[in-house]
């Protein structure tokens, strides 16, 4: 926010004419990048533009094919596998990087455990972990196993891990993709504090408002090429978006079309309870887009999983077009036209070591079998269709899902769920990690589905998305649906009041 | 009446011969318990030396007056046996002798004669086919097997009998089948097969049959399974003889041990069971169709 101050500051870390190829396919083309001391430098670009690749090179996790990295002006070959941490460069990877069996404390100190006379100083490490977590306003238990945390909690642990390391350069690859507004706010406060002490940050994000709010300078990449570096203050969101996409973006959200009041009820949920969720009831009409808002951990995911049969229901019924859907039977739900897209694409969404086609058709194989055997031609056709429809960009058609860029993985996951051609689609965090251009495409896609007569439930922590897209919004809090907003009521202020428990609908 | 408990520790029934041992041990145990109302016989089987040492300990825990033991492998069990013997328990050792085999280890030794099993086979081959080229299929790499090999070498000593090859068949039919198949590939002419065990002979015969080879004159096995004795009895050309190595010897030891308690005279010393050559003439004396072996 203070370009002049930064202008004169020395360059800490820079990339000079860096190119990178993966097995013959070039993904970065002679990119220049400079990070000054005490600045927060945003790195932006479409999905697959090469942001993650560039930051991995800047932290030693990948070696450039050509070009060089300079630290304090001196060319350097960064040590691999996180060895650059010794030089003061830490990175929060886009894809979570925690071992599920370890506890929070163990994860935070992994590889640099504190010992006294060769014995782990567990007390000290626990206290230190608690301190850092408190700093970030996180209530995660420092003794909890990582496996028991939600994605957002895991992300906070990752952030804590990076921040606790007294680094000169902190690289954050989409740290806020899974965080709520509140958490993001706390994070930003810490980041600014550290920036003021001279730490430099690289901040990768698709959220324009965050970039505008937090960063000092912006660098934009497109298709692996450097496009522009400029102080954030002289740009606005639209300009950045235009730089990224290379064309002008029309409005992000399509016009809302509300379904007729006498349109048939597609999905009816009656008094569903699970371990955490109590007594949730709601209806969705054909052609409706219903939003689900609420704070993180308010039970939205748990409710949706119970509806589609991924979790047993303790009580309550679900009806699709009047017909009851049995509890705990995802397959039956899918057959009745109900589909669910998970928010956890890495652990629950995609087979990371399988190719795109295998992932795409996994849920809908019956469509691609002829006389009981699979038809690779039909699968290939489906993949070609999906790549066009969802703009899945890869440079190598045989790439395994785990190596695709984060945003493109998300698109593939969406495509996979849509392959089942569901009538009712529950999408948990539809645009997590997706660039603005594609976001627009996805919103229009969702809207078109609704106009086609499908029903869509959007579970999202991104308020603008909920507001821009949905004609009705349910708000959850502590496992209950506490509010149902319609029309003009749908506003950030109103949703927050319900979510925070300041307001409750009359007859829940 | 006297109350006596005899513990019997024998190898697990994991092979034809040891199955015979289990069969005879249980048969005689039942018989003896009927004969002597005060007698209790506990039979325990173990697959390997370490667990047999455990079994001996467990028998001791139950309070036994005598131990009849046929060791899976004798040397590793000496310590365990000595432990029992040290408490004053009567010990009868069957078949397999440790390297030190004297009164400090056992009171009674009913000896199956492993060297003699090899020697009898060797002498028969020497006498019948003095210029034979022989292939040998061994058992497992443990001392009993080694003793049989040594006995065999002694048996053919001073003749023109030539051993072409010795390989392990693990006292297992399937492995013996494989080894024999490969012998048949490797040697264009084989006169005699010595496979020292009736179980392995089953696989050997099948392999010869499959290859339709006529150069092999006969197979010498050993132990005295009902299957092989039947063949000898029927005059099968491939199995002209069998060398007796009766699993029933454990029964003999058990009877003698019981006699030590219920009879008039104490039983001590060494009692050797011969490795009799079973031929067409005496085969019917050794044929027990109801035995599992």
């Amino acid at each position, binding site marked *: 926010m203070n370009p002049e101050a930064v202008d004169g500051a020395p360059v800490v870390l820079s990339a000079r004419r860096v190119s990178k190829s993966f097995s013959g396919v070039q993904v970065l083309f002679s990119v220049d990048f400079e990070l000054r001391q005490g600045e927060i430098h945003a790195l932006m670009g479409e999905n697959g533009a090469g942001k993650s690749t560039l930051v991995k090179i800047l932290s030693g996790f990948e070696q450039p094919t050509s070009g060089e990295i300079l630290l304090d002006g001196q060319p350097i070959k960064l040590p691999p596998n996180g060895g650059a941490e010794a030089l003061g460069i830490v990175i929060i990877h886009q894809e979570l990087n925690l071992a599920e069996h370890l506890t929070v404390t163990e994860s935070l100190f992994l590889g640099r455990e504190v010992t006294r006379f060769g014995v782990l100083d567990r007390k000290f490490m626990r206290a230190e972990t608690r301190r850092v977590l408190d700093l970030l306003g996180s209530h995660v238990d420092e003794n909890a196993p990582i496996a028991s945390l939600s994605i957002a909690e895991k992300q906070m642990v990752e952030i804590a891990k990076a921040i606790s390391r007294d680094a000169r350069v902190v690289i954050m690859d989409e740290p806020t993709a899974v965080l709520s507004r509140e958490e993001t706010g706390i994070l930003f406060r810490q980041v600014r504090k550290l920036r003021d002490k001279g730490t430099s940050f690289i901040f990768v994000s698709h959220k324009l408002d965050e970039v505008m709010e937090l960063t000092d300078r912006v660098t934009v990449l497109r298709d692996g090429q450097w496009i522009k570096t400029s102080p954030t203050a002289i740009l606005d969101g639209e300009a950045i978006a235009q730089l990224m996409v290379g064309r002008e973006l029309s409005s992000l959200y399509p016009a809302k079309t509300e379904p007729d009041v006498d349109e048939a009820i597609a999905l009816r949920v009656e008094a569903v309870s699970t371990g955490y969720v109590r007594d949730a009831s709601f209806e969705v009409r054909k052609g409706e887009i219903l939003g689900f808002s609420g704070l993180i951990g308010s039970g939205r995911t748990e409710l949706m999983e119970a509806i589609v049969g991924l979790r047993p229901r303790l009580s309550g019924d679900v009806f699709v077009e009047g017909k009851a859907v049995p509890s705990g039977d995802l397959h039956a739900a899918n057959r009745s036209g109900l589909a*669910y897209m998970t928010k956890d694409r890495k652990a629950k969404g995609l087979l990371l070591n399988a190719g795109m086609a295998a992932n795409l058709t996994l*849920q809908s194989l019956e469509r691609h079998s002829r006389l009981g055997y699979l038809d690779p031609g039909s699968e290939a056709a489906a993949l070609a269709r999906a790549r066009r429809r969802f703009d899945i960009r890869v440079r190598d058609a045989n790439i395994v899902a785990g190596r695709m860029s984060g945003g493109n993985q998300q698109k593939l996951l969406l495509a996979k769920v849509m392959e089942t051609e569901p009538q009712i689609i529950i999408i948990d965090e539809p645009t997590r990690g997706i660039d603005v251009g594609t976001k627009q495409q996805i919103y229009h896609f969702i809207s078109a589905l609704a106009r086609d007569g499908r029903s869509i439930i959007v579970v999202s922590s991104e308020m603008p998305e909920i507001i821009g897209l949905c004609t009705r919004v349910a708000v959850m809090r502590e496992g209950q649906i506490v509010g149902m907003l319609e029309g003009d009521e749908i506003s950030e202020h109103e949703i927050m009041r319900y979510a925070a428990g300041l307001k409750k609908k009359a007859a829940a | 009446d006297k109350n006596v408990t005899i513990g019997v520790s024998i190898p697990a*029934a*994991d092979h034809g011969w040891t199955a015979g041992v289990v069969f005879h041990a249980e048969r005689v145990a039942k018989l003896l318990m009927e004969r002597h109302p005060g007698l209790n016989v506990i039979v325990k089987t173990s697959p390997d030396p370490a667990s047999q040492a455990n079994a001996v300990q467990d028998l001791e825990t139950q309070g036994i007056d005598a131990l009849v033991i046929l060791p899976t492998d004798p040397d590793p069990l000496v310590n365990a046996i000595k432990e029992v013997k040290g408490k004053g328990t009567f010990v009868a050792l069957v078949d397999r002798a440790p390297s030190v085999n004297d009164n400090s280890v056992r009171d009674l030794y009913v000896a199956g004669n492993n060297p003699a099993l090899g020697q009898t086979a060797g002498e028969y081959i020497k006498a019948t086919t003095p210029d034979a080229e022989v292939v040998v299929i061994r058992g497992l790499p443990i001392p009993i097997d080694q003793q049989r090999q040594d006995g065999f070498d002694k048996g053919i000593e001073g003749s023109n009998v030539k051993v072409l090859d010795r*390989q392990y068949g693990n006292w297992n039919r399937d492995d013996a089948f*494989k080894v024999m198949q490969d012998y048949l590939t490797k040697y264009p002419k084989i006169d005699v097969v010595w496979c020292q065990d009736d179980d392995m002979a089953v696989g050997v015969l099948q392999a010869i049959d499959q290859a339709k080879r006529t150069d092999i004159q006969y197979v010498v096995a050993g132990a005295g399974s009902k299957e092989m004795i039947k063949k000898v009895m029927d005059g099968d050309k491939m199995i002209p003889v069998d060398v007796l190595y009766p699993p029933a010897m454990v029964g003999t030891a058990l009877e003698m041990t019981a006699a030590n308690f219920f009879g008039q005279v104490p039983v001590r010393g060494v009692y050797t069971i011969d490795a009799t050559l079973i031929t067409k003439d005496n085969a019917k004396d050794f044929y027990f169709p109801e035995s599992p072996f």
Partner: protein
Amino acid sequence: MSVNEESSQNGIRRRSWRDVDLRAVAPFAALALLLIIGAMVNPNFIGVNNLANVATRSAFIAIIAVGATFVISAGDLDLSVGAMVAFIASLMILFMNSGAIADPALMLAAAVAFAVAAGAACGLANGLITTVGRIEPFIATLGTMGIYRGLTTWLSQGGAITLREPQLQEMYRPAYFGSILGMPVPIVVILAVTAVAAFVLYRTRYGRHVVAVGSNSDVARYSGIAVNRVRTIAFVIQGLCVAVAVLLYVPRLGSTSATTGILWELQAITAVVVGGTALKGGAGRVWGTICGAFILELVGNIMLLSNFVSEYLIGAIQGAIIIIAMLVQRSLVRKS
């Protein structure tokens, strides 16, 4: 850009094809190497007769290992297969000895059906204990290994169970010793079983599901796959493969005992891994498995045919050869 993208795609595609191919080819390269070594060791080795012998007797392990490929691809493990062979073979022979059906041909057919059903049942038991009982497959199948082998010992009273009816035996013998169009029956069976298995694994929905479950069972569950059912069916397939192996085993020696199939589980798993399937699950190579079974049998064969290895050292050399074969494979793949 899009032109660019297209062309570069092709570039990579070619490369990664080479990659994939090499990995799949590696076991076959190791096999070829062994054949060459064998030919040098003993001229009889490379004879049709010897190779047919080796291929024929690899049938049991090969067919069992095909089943194991499914179980392992689904992320499980079955240690009970060796014991299962003994158990099913015992049941089958006892059934044939029972004389329940007078006509021998009918009896044989019934016995075959009976063995197949028994195999499926044993596999189902393994599958249910593992999935419904939620016990680590290693322990679950170690337990059933004890059960199957114990029951066999009990059925045979420790001795051998021998097919008594000579007429049946005569009729059944060609199932192992016969040949079809000059090819020994067991080799034909191996090829048929493998072809069917490859079809199921690579070309059916179920096969995809197996790989998905083995690769990440959560993802599979979220994709509407009945994970436990898929795993259980894999165990049933394993059981069926064991039954087929038994159908070949019984006519060979016409008898079984409690020692039948001892350690075959380790051999089957080794064949699977040597064939290129990872024990972690998530990928299966059926043809590689067959190749692995063949390699194992060849190593033993070469040892026996060679004249310069002490019989005491055979085990050591076999172990060393397996390690070297794997190292050769690895270095091949790495070079790509």
